[in-house]
């Protein structure tokens, strides 16, 4: 019988399984790269070359943010769940800080239009998330609904 002292603590236990965050982030990146030309076109039509630059910059920030979050969480979960909690909160602060610094650093540049930059930040983040959530909810919570290829069916 294991005693309470011999049992591993919740905070020091770790998850050595595959990192699903990276898979999710890879899907988001792939979807984002598919949608990027359309967003760039909208930015170019609406605001010209400065709209093109602003939309591209914002989309790059969002994709980099997702990738960084996945890498940090995957790394922390392999070490301990306590570190996972710390990395989740401080990673959030650091990533929001990085986005703020990046946007504030370029806001006075000639190629930056505030409206397409801001709108792209929010719409790209939420749009890619909803897109990915649709797939994840259909494949993890309800595995029977996972899309199958024609060979499997």
């Amino acid at each position, binding site marked *: 019988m294991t005693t309470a002292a011999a049992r591993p603590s919740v905070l020091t236990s770790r*998850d050595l399984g595959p990192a699903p965050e990276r898979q999710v982030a890879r899907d988001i990146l792939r979807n984002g790269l598919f949608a990027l030309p359309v967003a760039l076109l909208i930015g170019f039509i609406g605001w010209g070359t400065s709209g093109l630059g602003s939309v591209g910059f914002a989309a790059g920030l969002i994709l980099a943010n997702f990738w960084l979050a996945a890498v940090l969480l995957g790394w922390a979960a392999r070490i301990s769940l306590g570190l996972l*909690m710390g990395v*989740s909160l401080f990673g959030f602060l650091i990533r929001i800080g990085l986005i703020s610094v990046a946007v504030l650093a370029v806001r006075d540049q000639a190629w930056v239009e505030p409206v397409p930059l801001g709108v792209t*930040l929010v719409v790209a983040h939420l749009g890619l998330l909803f897109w990915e959530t649709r797939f994840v909810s259909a494949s*993890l919570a309800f595995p029977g609904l996972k899309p199958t290829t024609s060979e499997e069916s």
Partner: protein
Amino acid sequence: MLLAEITNKGLAALTYGLGAIGPGIGIGYLVGQAVQAMARQPEAAGMVRTTMFLGIAFVEALALIGFVVFFLAGA
């Protein structure tokens, strides 16, 4: 009067700072519950981590919206 000296830009920055508190609390609660779930059911850790990652990103969207409002109001 002090309040009268606050510019629109300062007000926007203050609001953004206040608005970032909510997502911070949300992420703390979300991750705490996820870690508890992983500790109780290690075999479900993959699913918990996936939903936790997406949950964090959704909560983060609130802070991002706050930042964008601050950026557009201060621009």
